[in-house]
């Protein structure tokens, strides 16, 4: 065999080595900058079944792009064909070159430029060659078809099911050009070689035959391979600085995540890794409702991540409503909400609040403590309904914030004021514990989320009122006369996406109303969120109108939500009535009889319920 070298391979080797060394350096830094606890998680996870799970996730997400397939078939095909097709070209090219060169250990460029070194017949195992050539041509065709979709997407993104596509950073544009040229360059270079020697399969062979028909391709073989090598070099040199850094970073993110590393409040190696793993695919742009309400403003998460990566101060970050729809839609699974939260500086607001605890009203012992939250005090209908429900259920309850002046601290946290939020939390924690209650019911998903995530309340169980009502219905503590109306449920961001409470409110809705006309899909943002303080009222209303028109697509009689803030935001823009789930329950509840005939049943139920509560407590 003649020597497997030609000067053009130097370009590729140089470019690839650069990218490879950058990646190794980055992986070491990402690992080194993890907090010690996360590092030990990774080290303990490596030799466990988690590695295999992560490997499978890498194949199904990084190569096959299952998540994007679920969203839109053509978009999934585009991503899959580019990633999986390219990967298979590398793998099969490697097998082919190993097979024919007879050596496992050879420079990397040999397999990349194998068709140049071995254009076709003349080797003893020639019978396998057409097979390899055909498989290689098939995967090249797969990649080229994906490339076709990618080009169409740039100009007409609706074809692949996207309303909008990402506006590119200049570096990304250069890298994109290089990437787009790689595969046509490969096709032409291989076709030139195949045309010269009369080899190749259905794609390279036919194109080579066509070339040979019109001119003598031999003098152009070397220039074509030089061009291919140069394009590869350009792509690999640009890779670390462009969005294509996600290609090597995404598997690392998947592995770290499988080992249990999460985005925390502090900037760690994992944060930097997440920024690199964002492929800027633009799925978050369509998920963001502000794309409709504030068209043309680059505030979506891919722009946000990009500005952080390029070490710029993110623009428009106070306009984000922190609804979390982008995070739910992200095919890579980047924790975008903690990343955004991290960028909000603590400017010391709220530190003047008195730190002494509120005197607790612990005159009599109660089981149930009700915390309405400041927002519910602006919709007293919810509080009145909850009072009715408590009375009807015969609960021994106490109203913690009857005076309306208590804060859970989450609005401060959303505005970046973590220190003040901590002070408020410590104060309220003491007050809650002082009542001696075993169950804390809140009407506000914003309060619920921070109670659940940050408060240390010991054995006190925390529920949102939709969960509480669901349990009352389940255990027959209240009775419902079913209404004939058709309702649609709006899932508040803090309750559904934020706290994972999706089933219970839907159960209540189907118990109250004859038909649940909630449109399928991810919950919407009402536009009233406390996450985006800089948004003006017009934009908020535009978001709310958009959400209402989507929610009322199936023509329901009324809209039910479980958040006082959503209710207030929707009411002015909705043509059909908007109700909180507590008000809906109170309006359908059979009042007065106190379920006397069901007393025995109730007692039984209460016993079981206590058992259940104990189980939950011991479990937690």
């Amino acid at each position, binding site marked *: 065999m003649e020597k497997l070298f030609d000067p053009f391979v130097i370009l590729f080797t140089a470019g690839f080595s650069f990218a490879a060394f950058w990646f190794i350096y980055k992986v070491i830094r990402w690992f080194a900058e993890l907090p010690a606890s996360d590092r030990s998680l990774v080290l303990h996870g490596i030799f466990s079944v988690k590695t295999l799970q992560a490997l499978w996730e890498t194949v199904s997400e990084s190569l096959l792009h299952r998540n994007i397939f679920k969203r839109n078939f053509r978009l999934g095909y585009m991503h899959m064909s580019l990633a999986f097709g390219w990967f298979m070209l590398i793998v099969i090219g490697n097998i082919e070159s190993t097979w024919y060169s007879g050596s496992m250990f050879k420079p990397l460029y040999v397999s990349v430029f194998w068709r140049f070194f071995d254009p076709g017949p003349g080797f003893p195992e020639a019978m396998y060659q057409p097979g390899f050539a055909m498989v290689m041509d098939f995967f090249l065709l797969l990649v080229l078809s994906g490339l076709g979709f990618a080009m169409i997407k740039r100009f007409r993104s609706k074809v692949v099911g996207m309303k909008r596509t990402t506006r590119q950073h200049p570096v990304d544009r250069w890298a994109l050009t290089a990437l787009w040229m790689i595969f046509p360059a490969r096709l032409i270079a291989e076709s030139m070689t195949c045309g010269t020697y009369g080899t190749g399969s259905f794609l390279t062979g036919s194109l080579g035959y066509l070339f040979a028909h019109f001119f003598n391709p031999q003098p152009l073989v070397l220039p074509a391979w030089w061009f291919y090598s140069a394009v590869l070099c350009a792509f690999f040199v640009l890779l670390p600085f462009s969005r294509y850094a996600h290609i090597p970073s995404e598997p690392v993110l998947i592995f770290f995540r499988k080992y249990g590393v999460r985005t925390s409040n502090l900037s760690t190696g994992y944060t930097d890794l997440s920024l690199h793993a964002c492929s800027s695919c633009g799925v978050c742009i369509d998920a963001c409702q502000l794309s409709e309400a504030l068209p043309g403003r680059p505030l979506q998460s891919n722009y946000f991540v990009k500005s952080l990566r390029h070490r710029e101060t993110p623009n428009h970050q106070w306009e984000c409503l922190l609804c979390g729809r982008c995070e739910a839609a992200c095919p890579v699974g980047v924790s975008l909400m903690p990343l955004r939260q991290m960028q909000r500086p603590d400017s010391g*607001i709220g530190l003047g609040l008195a730190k002494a605890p509120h005197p607790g009203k612990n005159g009599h012992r109660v089981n149930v403590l009700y915390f309405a939250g400041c927002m519910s005090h602006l919709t007293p209908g919810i509080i009145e309904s909850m009072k009715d429900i408590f009375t009807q259920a015969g609960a021994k309850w106490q109203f913690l914030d009857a005076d309306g*002046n208590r804060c859970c601290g989450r609005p401060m946290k959303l505005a970046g004021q973590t220190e003040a939020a901590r002070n408020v939390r410590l104060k309220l924690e003491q007050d809650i514990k002082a009542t001696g209650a075993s169950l804390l019911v809140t009407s506000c998903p914003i309060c619920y989320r921070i109670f659940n995530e940050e408060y240390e309340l010991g054995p006190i169980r925390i529920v949102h009122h939709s969960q509480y009502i669901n349990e009352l219905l389940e255990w027959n503590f209240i009775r419902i006369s079913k209404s004939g109306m058709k309702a649609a449920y709006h899932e508040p961001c803090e309750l559904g996406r934020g706290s994972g409470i999706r089933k219970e409110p839907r159960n209540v809705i189907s118990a109250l109303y004859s038909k649940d006309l909630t449109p399928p899909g991810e919950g919407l943002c009402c536009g009233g969120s406390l996450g985006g303080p800089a948004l003006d009222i017009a934009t908020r209303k535009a978001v709310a109108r958009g959400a209402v028109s989507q929610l009322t697509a199936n023509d329901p009689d009324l809209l039910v939500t479980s958040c006082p803030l959503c209710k207030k935001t929707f009411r002015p823009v909705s043509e059909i009535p908007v109700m909180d789930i507590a008000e809906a329950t109170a309006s359908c509840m059979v009042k007065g009889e106190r379920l006397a005939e069901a007393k025995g049943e109730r007692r039984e139920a209460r016993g079981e319920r206590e058992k259940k509560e104990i189980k939950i407590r011991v479990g937690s």
Partner: protein
Amino acid sequence: MKNRFGFEIQDNRQIDLDLADDRVNDEVSAIIRAWRSCLKCGNCAAVCPEGEGVYKLDLSAFLDLSAFQKLTGLDKCYLCGKCQLVCPRGIPTRFVIMQVINYMKEYGKAV
């Protein structure tokens, strides 16, 4: 002395423009245009859980930095956003408070 509408007119109705320093006001209203449209209706004060805060940003603060400095209630703000919900002019009051505090810190030393 009351006029015929029943209002009392005070003798001295001067504003000392030599002392006026509206840098904070300018910065804030450059970011939040709606800020200047405040009616002083008092809805925000009515719902404020802390009883102090945004409603203290009264007209005098438009002209005078020292008026901002007297707003001791601002650092007690919960940022709960109730004032924003009831504002008839739709002013993003939470953001106003955050910005005022930021600029106060920036200019506080200069004064």
